[in-house]
Protein backbone atom coordinates (compact mmCIF):
# COMPACT_ATOMS: atom_id res chain seq x y z
CA UNK A 1 0.00 0.00 0.00
CA UNK A 2 1.53 3.03 -1.09
CA UNK A 3 0.80 6.07 0.82
CA UNK A 4 0.70 9.39 -0.76
CA UNK A 5 3.55 11.39 0.81
CA UNK A 6 1.27 14.38 1.05
CA UNK A 7 -1.38 12.35 2.78
CA UNK A 8 1.27 10.79 4.79
CA UNK A 9 2.50 14.13 5.71
CA UNK A 10 -1.02 15.23 6.42
CA UNK A 11 -1.48 12.46 8.86
CA UNK A 12 1.96 13.16 10.15
CA UNK A 13 1.13 16.75 10.33
CA UNK A 14 -2.01 15.87 12.17
CA UNK A 15 0.12 13.68 14.33
CA UNK A 16 2.64 16.45 14.63
CA UNK A 17 -0.07 18.88 15.46
CA UNK A 18 -1.18 16.85 18.39
CA UNK A 19 2.41 16.41 19.63
CA UNK A 20 3.08 20.08 19.24
CA UNK A 21 -0.08 20.92 21.08
CA UNK A 22 0.88 18.46 23.81
CA UNK A 23 4.30 20.06 24.13
CA UNK A 24 2.78 23.50 24.28
CA UNK A 25 0.33 22.42 26.91
CA UNK A 26 3.13 20.93 29.05
CA UNK A 27 5.19 24.06 28.54
CA UNK A 28 2.44 26.32 29.72
CA UNK A 29 1.84 24.03 32.67
CA UNK A 30 5.53 24.27 33.54
CA UNK A 31 5.43 28.05 33.10
CA UNK A 32 2.39 28.35 35.31
CA UNK A 33 4.12 26.27 37.96
CA UNK A 34 7.33 28.25 37.78
CA UNK A 35 5.51 31.53 37.84
CA UNK A 36 4.33 30.62 41.35
CA UNK A 37 7.38 28.66 42.56
CA UNK A 38 10.21 30.99 41.61
CA UNK A 39 9.08 34.07 43.57
CA UNK A 40 8.29 31.84 46.55
CA UNK A 41 11.75 30.34 46.37
CA UNK A 42 13.30 33.80 46.16
CA UNK A 43 11.34 34.94 49.20
CA UNK A 44 12.43 31.90 51.16
CA UNK A 45 16.05 32.48 50.30
CA UNK A 46 15.85 36.11 51.40
CA UNK A 47 14.34 35.24 54.76
CA UNK A 48 16.93 32.49 55.21
CA UNK A 49 19.78 34.90 54.53
CA UNK A 50 18.55 37.48 57.02
CA UNK A 51 18.09 34.82 59.72
CA UNK A 52 21.49 33.27 59.05
CA UNK A 53 23.35 36.55 59.25
CA UNK A 54 21.53 37.49 62.48
CA UNK A 55 22.45 34.30 64.29
CA UNK A 56 25.98 33.95 63.09
CA UNK A 57 27.26 37.35 64.34
CA UNK A 58 29.43 36.71 67.48
CA UNK A 59 27.91 37.99 70.73
CA UNK A 60 31.33 39.00 72.10
CA UNK A 61 32.42 42.60 72.15
CA UNK A 62 33.54 44.23 68.95
CA UNK A 63 37.15 45.37 68.76
CA UNK A 64 37.90 48.65 67.06
CA UNK A 65 41.42 48.91 65.66
CA UNK A 66 43.41 51.53 63.78
CA UNK A 67 44.90 49.19 61.26
CA UNK A 68 45.52 45.51 60.93
CA UNK A 69 48.00 43.40 59.03
CA UNK A 70 47.94 39.70 58.26
CA UNK A 71 51.16 37.73 58.47
CA UNK A 72 51.90 33.98 58.68
CA UNK A 73 48.48 32.95 59.97
CA UNK A 74 48.29 35.78 62.51
CA UNK A 75 46.17 38.87 62.40
CA UNK A 76 48.10 41.78 63.91
CA UNK A 77 46.09 44.84 64.97
CA UNK A 78 47.56 48.21 65.86
CA UNK A 79 46.30 49.96 69.03
CA UNK A 80 43.05 48.04 69.39
CA UNK A 81 40.47 49.62 71.63
CA UNK A 82 37.74 47.70 73.40
CA UNK A 83 34.90 49.19 75.39
CA UNK A 84 32.10 47.54 77.27
CA UNK A 85 29.95 47.67 80.37
CA UNK A 86 30.24 45.66 83.58
CA UNK A 87 27.23 43.86 85.04
CA UNK A 88 26.15 46.97 86.93
CA UNK A 89 26.39 48.89 83.65
CA UNK A 90 29.51 50.91 84.40
CA UNK A 91 31.84 51.51 81.45
CA UNK A 92 35.22 49.80 81.18
CA UNK A 93 37.82 50.43 78.48
CA UNK A 94 40.88 48.53 77.38
CA UNK A 95 43.50 49.71 74.90
CA UNK A 96 46.76 48.09 73.80
CA UNK A 97 49.63 49.08 71.54
CA UNK A 98 49.38 45.81 69.62
CA UNK A 99 47.08 42.80 69.42
CA UNK A 100 47.98 39.50 67.77
CA UNK A 101 45.22 37.03 66.95
CA UNK A 102 45.78 33.54 65.59
CA UNK A 103 43.29 33.03 62.77
CA UNK A 104 42.73 29.40 63.75
CA UNK A 105 41.70 30.40 67.28
CA UNK A 106 40.26 33.86 67.05
CA UNK A 107 38.73 33.78 70.54
CA UNK A 108 42.16 34.43 72.06
CA UNK A 109 44.01 37.72 71.50
CA UNK A 110 47.57 38.36 72.69
CA UNK A 111 47.86 41.97 73.76
CA UNK A 112 50.92 44.13 74.28
CA UNK A 113 51.20 47.47 76.06
CA UNK A 114 47.87 47.09 77.84
CA UNK A 115 46.06 49.99 79.51
CA UNK A 116 42.68 49.07 80.98
CA UNK A 117 40.29 51.31 82.89
CA UNK A 118 37.96 49.46 85.27
CA UNK A 119 35.21 51.14 87.33
CA UNK A 120 35.31 50.65 91.11
CA UNK A 121 32.46 52.83 92.29
CA UNK A 122 30.71 56.09 91.52
CA UNK A 123 33.77 58.29 91.51
CA UNK A 124 36.61 55.81 91.69
CA UNK A 125 38.18 53.67 88.99
CA UNK A 126 41.30 51.60 88.50
CA UNK A 127 43.86 51.96 85.71
CA UNK A 128 45.66 48.73 84.86
CA UNK A 129 49.02 49.00 83.06
CA UNK A 130 50.69 45.79 81.90
CA UNK A 131 53.35 45.00 79.28
CA UNK A 132 51.42 42.03 77.87
CA UNK A 133 48.50 39.69 78.50
CA UNK A 134 46.05 37.28 76.94
CA UNK A 135 42.47 38.43 76.30
CA UNK A 136 39.73 35.80 75.90
CA UNK A 137 36.94 37.30 73.83
CA UNK A 138 34.23 34.80 74.72
CA UNK A 139 34.80 34.81 78.47
CA UNK A 140 35.77 38.50 78.41
CA UNK A 141 38.74 37.85 80.70
CA UNK A 142 42.30 39.20 80.65
CA UNK A 143 45.17 37.03 81.92
CA UNK A 144 48.31 39.03 82.69
CA UNK A 145 51.38 36.95 83.48
CA UNK A 146 53.95 39.69 84.01
CA UNK A 147 54.62 42.56 86.39
CA UNK A 148 51.88 45.15 86.27
CA UNK A 149 50.68 48.25 88.10
CA UNK A 150 47.14 49.20 89.13
CA UNK A 151 46.51 52.78 90.20
CA UNK A 152 43.15 53.99 91.47
CA UNK A 153 41.71 57.46 91.41
CA UNK A 154 41.79 57.68 95.20
CA UNK A 155 45.56 57.29 95.23
CA UNK A 156 46.10 53.57 95.69
CA UNK A 157 49.09 52.08 93.85
CA UNK A 158 49.19 48.28 93.57
CA UNK A 159 52.19 46.44 92.15
CA UNK A 160 51.43 42.87 91.12
CA UNK A 161 53.42 40.02 89.52
CA UNK A 162 50.42 38.65 87.65
CA UNK A 163 46.64 38.94 87.54
CA UNK A 164 43.58 37.28 86.08
CA UNK A 165 40.94 39.94 85.40
CA UNK A 166 37.28 39.11 84.78
CA UNK A 167 36.17 42.30 83.06
CA UNK A 168 32.42 41.62 83.11
CA UNK A 169 32.06 40.81 86.80
CA UNK A 170 34.77 43.28 87.79
CA UNK A 171 36.70 40.58 89.64
CA UNK A 172 40.42 39.88 89.79
CA UNK A 173 42.66 37.17 91.23
CA UNK A 174 46.40 36.70 91.60
CA UNK A 175 48.43 34.00 93.31
CA UNK A 176 51.65 36.00 93.18
CA UNK A 177 52.92 38.51 95.74
CA UNK A 178 51.27 41.92 95.78
CA UNK A 179 52.37 45.26 97.21
CA UNK A 180 49.69 47.90 97.70
CA UNK A 181 50.45 51.38 98.92
CA UNK A 182 47.95 54.03 99.83
CA UNK A 183 47.88 57.27 101.81
CA UNK A 184 49.51 56.16 105.02
CA UNK A 185 48.98 52.40 104.72
CA UNK A 186 50.78 49.62 102.91
CA UNK A 187 49.66 46.00 102.43
CA UNK A 188 51.76 43.12 101.14
CA UNK A 189 50.68 39.50 100.81
CA UNK A 190 51.31 36.43 98.67
CA UNK A 191 47.93 36.37 96.97
CA UNK A 192 44.91 38.59 96.47
CA UNK A 193 41.35 38.32 95.15
CA UNK A 194 39.14 41.27 94.28
CA UNK A 195 35.39 40.69 94.05
CA UNK A 196 32.35 42.80 93.26
CA UNK A 197 34.21 45.56 91.42
CA UNK A 198 36.64 46.20 94.23
CA UNK A 199 34.01 46.13 97.00
CA UNK A 200 35.59 43.04 98.59
CA UNK A 201 39.34 42.45 98.71
CA UNK A 202 40.75 39.22 100.12
CA UNK A 203 44.48 38.94 100.84
CA UNK A 204 45.92 35.60 101.81
CA UNK A 205 49.25 34.06 102.88
CA UNK A 206 51.70 36.20 104.83
CA UNK A 207 49.53 39.29 104.96
CA UNK A 208 51.33 42.29 106.37
CA UNK A 209 49.83 45.74 106.80
CA UNK A 210 51.78 48.79 107.94
CA UNK A 211 49.75 51.79 109.01
CA UNK A 212 51.32 55.18 109.66
CA UNK A 213 48.64 56.97 111.73
CA UNK A 214 50.29 60.38 111.34
CA UNK A 215 50.05 60.27 107.54
CA UNK A 216 46.64 58.64 107.78
CA UNK A 217 45.14 61.48 109.74
CA UNK A 218 46.58 64.24 107.64
CA UNK A 219 45.83 62.17 104.56
CA UNK A 220 48.87 63.34 102.64
CA UNK A 221 49.29 61.79 99.27
CA UNK A 222 51.46 58.75 98.87
CA UNK A 223 54.94 60.15 98.28
CA UNK A 224 55.94 57.47 95.76
CA UNK A 225 52.76 56.90 93.75
CA UNK A 226 51.45 59.22 91.02
CA UNK A 227 49.02 61.77 92.24
CA UNK A 228 45.75 61.10 90.49
CA UNK A 229 45.38 58.93 87.46
CA UNK A 230 47.41 59.97 84.40
Amino acid sequence: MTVDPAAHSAIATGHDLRAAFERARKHSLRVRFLKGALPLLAALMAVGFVGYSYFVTPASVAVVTDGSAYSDGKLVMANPKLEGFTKDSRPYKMTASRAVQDVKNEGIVQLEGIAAKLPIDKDNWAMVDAPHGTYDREKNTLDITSDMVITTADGMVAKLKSAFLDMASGGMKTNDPIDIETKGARITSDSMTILENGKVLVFENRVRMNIDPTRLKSGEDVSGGQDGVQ
Partner: protein
Amino acid sequence: QDKAAQDGKGAQGRLQGLSLSGKDPIQIESDKLEVRESDSVAIFSGNVTVVQGPTLLKAGKMTVYYAKDGKENGGGSAATGSANIDRLEVDDKVYVKSNTQVATGDRGTFDMKSEVLVLSGKEVVLSEGSNVLVGCKLTVQMKSGEAQVDGCKKGSDAGNGRVMMSITPNSTSGAGQKK
Protein backbone atom coordinates in the same frame (compact mmCIF):
# COMPACT_ATOMS: atom_id res chain seq x y z
CA GLN B 1 24.12 41.72 144.98
CA ASP B 2 25.41 45.22 144.35
CA LYS B 3 27.49 45.12 147.48
CA ALA B 4 29.16 41.94 146.35
CA ALA B 5 29.79 43.41 142.94
CA GLN B 6 31.09 46.53 144.72
CA ASP B 7 33.11 44.28 146.90
CA GLY B 8 34.66 42.57 143.95
CA LYS B 9 35.28 45.93 142.31
CA GLY B 10 38.77 44.89 141.53
CA ALA B 11 42.10 46.37 141.91
CA GLN B 12 42.81 49.80 140.61
CA GLY B 13 46.28 49.99 139.40
CA ARG B 14 48.55 52.20 137.43
CA LEU B 15 49.95 50.56 134.45
CA GLN B 16 52.36 52.61 132.49
CA GLY B 17 53.04 49.92 129.97
CA LEU B 18 49.70 49.17 128.36
CA SER B 19 49.33 52.29 126.25
CA LEU B 20 48.64 52.62 122.55
CA SER B 21 49.84 55.93 121.21
CA GLY B 22 48.10 57.49 118.25
CA LYS B 23 51.39 58.37 116.56
CA ASP B 24 53.62 55.33 116.31
CA PRO B 25 53.26 53.25 113.16
CA ILE B 26 51.28 50.03 113.58
CA GLN B 27 52.26 46.79 111.93
CA ILE B 28 49.66 44.03 111.55
CA GLU B 29 50.41 40.53 110.30
CA SER B 30 47.99 37.66 109.73
CA ASP B 31 47.30 34.69 107.49
CA LYS B 32 44.33 36.31 105.84
CA LEU B 33 42.79 39.76 105.48
CA GLU B 34 39.35 40.42 104.06
CA VAL B 35 38.35 44.03 103.43
CA ARG B 36 34.61 44.61 102.91
CA GLU B 37 34.23 48.08 101.51
CA SER B 38 30.43 48.25 101.81
CA ASP B 39 30.44 47.24 105.49
CA SER B 40 33.56 49.37 106.16
CA VAL B 41 35.21 46.49 107.92
CA ALA B 42 38.57 44.69 107.63
CA ILE B 43 38.86 41.19 109.10
CA PHE B 44 42.32 39.83 109.89
CA SER B 45 42.27 36.12 110.66
CA GLY B 46 44.86 33.45 111.47
CA ASN B 47 47.75 34.21 113.87
CA VAL B 48 47.02 37.91 113.99
CA THR B 49 49.92 39.94 115.40
CA VAL B 50 49.73 43.68 115.97
CA VAL B 51 52.83 45.62 116.96
CA GLN B 52 52.89 49.28 117.88
CA GLY B 53 55.96 50.58 119.62
CA PRO B 54 56.36 48.55 122.83
CA THR B 55 52.85 47.07 122.66
CA LEU B 56 52.28 43.68 121.09
CA LEU B 57 48.88 42.07 120.61
CA LYS B 58 48.25 38.54 119.43
CA ALA B 59 44.85 37.02 118.66
CA GLY B 60 43.16 34.43 116.45
CA LYS B 61 41.03 37.04 114.75
CA MET B 62 40.84 40.82 114.65
CA THR B 63 38.06 42.86 113.09
CA VAL B 64 38.72 46.53 112.36
CA TYR B 65 35.59 48.67 112.08
CA TYR B 66 36.11 51.86 110.07
CA ALA B 67 34.09 54.93 110.90
CA LYS B 68 31.24 55.35 108.40
CA ASP B 69 31.70 59.00 107.54
CA GLY B 70 28.56 61.07 107.19
CA LYS B 71 29.54 62.14 103.70
CA GLU B 72 28.31 59.75 101.01
CA ASN B 73 31.69 58.96 99.59
CA GLY B 74 33.35 58.93 102.98
CA GLY B 75 36.86 60.25 103.77
CA GLY B 76 39.01 57.28 102.88
CA SER B 77 38.01 53.73 102.19
CA ALA B 78 38.55 50.61 104.21
CA ALA B 79 40.50 49.14 101.33
CA THR B 80 43.05 51.90 101.34
CA GLY B 81 43.18 51.83 105.14
CA SER B 82 42.99 55.57 105.12
CA ALA B 83 39.49 55.74 106.61
CA ASN B 84 39.72 56.43 110.32
CA ILE B 85 39.32 53.39 112.55
CA ASP B 86 36.26 53.30 114.80
CA ARG B 87 37.08 50.28 116.95
CA LEU B 88 38.92 46.97 116.93
CA GLU B 89 37.52 43.65 118.09
CA VAL B 90 39.84 40.76 118.81
CA ASP B 91 38.73 37.19 119.39
CA ASP B 92 40.00 33.69 119.82
CA LYS B 93 42.58 33.91 122.66
CA VAL B 94 43.91 37.43 123.09
CA TYR B 95 47.41 38.18 124.38
CA VAL B 96 48.52 41.74 125.00
CA LYS B 97 52.06 42.53 126.08
CA SER B 98 53.44 45.96 126.72
CA ASN B 99 56.82 46.52 128.33
CA THR B 100 56.48 44.58 131.58
CA GLN B 101 52.73 43.97 131.66
CA VAL B 102 51.03 40.99 130.04
CA ALA B 103 47.26 40.56 129.81
CA THR B 104 45.42 37.57 128.40
CA GLY B 105 41.73 36.86 127.82
CA ASP B 106 39.25 35.29 125.42
CA ARG B 107 38.00 38.41 123.69
CA GLY B 108 38.90 42.05 123.56
CA THR B 109 37.63 45.31 122.17
CA PHE B 110 39.54 48.56 121.72
CA ASP B 111 37.63 51.75 121.08
CA MET B 112 39.84 54.28 119.28
CA LYS B 113 37.93 57.37 120.34
CA SER B 114 37.81 56.68 124.05
CA GLU B 115 41.05 54.64 123.83
CA VAL B 116 39.63 52.04 126.21
CA LEU B 117 40.79 48.43 125.92
CA VAL B 118 38.46 45.84 127.40
CA LEU B 119 39.58 42.23 127.75
CA SER B 120 37.00 39.71 128.83
CA GLY B 121 36.58 35.98 129.08
CA LYS B 122 36.22 33.15 131.52
CA GLU B 123 39.62 34.04 132.98
CA VAL B 124 41.34 37.34 132.33
CA VAL B 125 44.86 37.45 133.71
CA LEU B 126 46.90 40.63 134.10
CA SER B 127 50.43 40.05 135.26
CA GLU B 128 53.55 42.09 135.79
CA GLY B 129 56.59 40.08 136.64
CA SER B 130 55.32 37.76 139.38
CA ASN B 131 52.34 39.94 140.39
CA VAL B 132 49.13 38.50 139.05
CA LEU B 133 45.59 39.80 138.89
CA VAL B 134 42.84 37.41 137.81
CA GLY B 135 39.24 38.34 137.08
CA CYS B 136 36.69 38.22 134.30
CA LYS B 137 37.06 41.68 132.83
CA LEU B 138 40.03 43.97 132.41
CA THR B 139 39.39 47.58 131.45
CA VAL B 140 42.43 49.66 130.55
CA GLN B 141 42.34 53.39 129.88
CA MET B 142 45.03 53.38 127.24
CA LYS B 143 45.67 57.11 127.51
CA SER B 144 46.55 56.98 131.18
CA GLY B 145 47.46 53.28 131.33
CA GLU B 146 45.07 52.94 134.27
CA ALA B 147 43.71 49.40 134.53
CA GLN B 148 40.78 47.95 136.39
CA VAL B 149 40.07 44.26 136.79
CA ASP B 150 36.51 43.19 137.62
CA GLY B 151 35.60 39.89 139.18
CA CYS B 152 33.28 37.44 137.53
CA LYS B 153 29.57 37.68 138.19
CA LYS B 154 28.39 36.07 141.41
CA GLY B 155 27.80 32.36 141.08
CA SER B 156 29.48 32.04 137.70
CA ASP B 157 31.65 28.95 137.78
CA ALA B 158 34.83 30.95 137.19
CA GLY B 159 34.82 32.71 140.50
CA ASN B 160 32.75 34.11 143.24
CA GLY B 161 32.62 37.68 141.97
CA ARG B 162 35.92 38.51 143.55
CA VAL B 163 39.24 39.40 142.03
CA MET B 164 42.25 37.29 142.84
CA MET B 165 45.42 39.22 143.25
CA SER B 166 48.76 37.97 144.36
CA ILE B 167 51.67 40.29 144.96
CA THR B 168 55.19 39.16 145.55
CA PRO B 169 56.36 41.72 148.13
CA ASN B 170 59.87 42.34 146.94
CA SER B 171 58.94 42.08 143.29
CA THR B 172 61.21 44.15 141.05
CA SER B 173 58.84 46.62 139.37
CA GLY B 174 58.15 49.87 141.14
CA ALA B 175 54.40 49.74 140.42
CA GLY B 176 53.68 47.15 143.16
CA GLN B 177 49.92 47.74 143.32
CA LYS B 178 48.55 47.37 146.81
CA LYS B 179 44.93 46.32 147.24
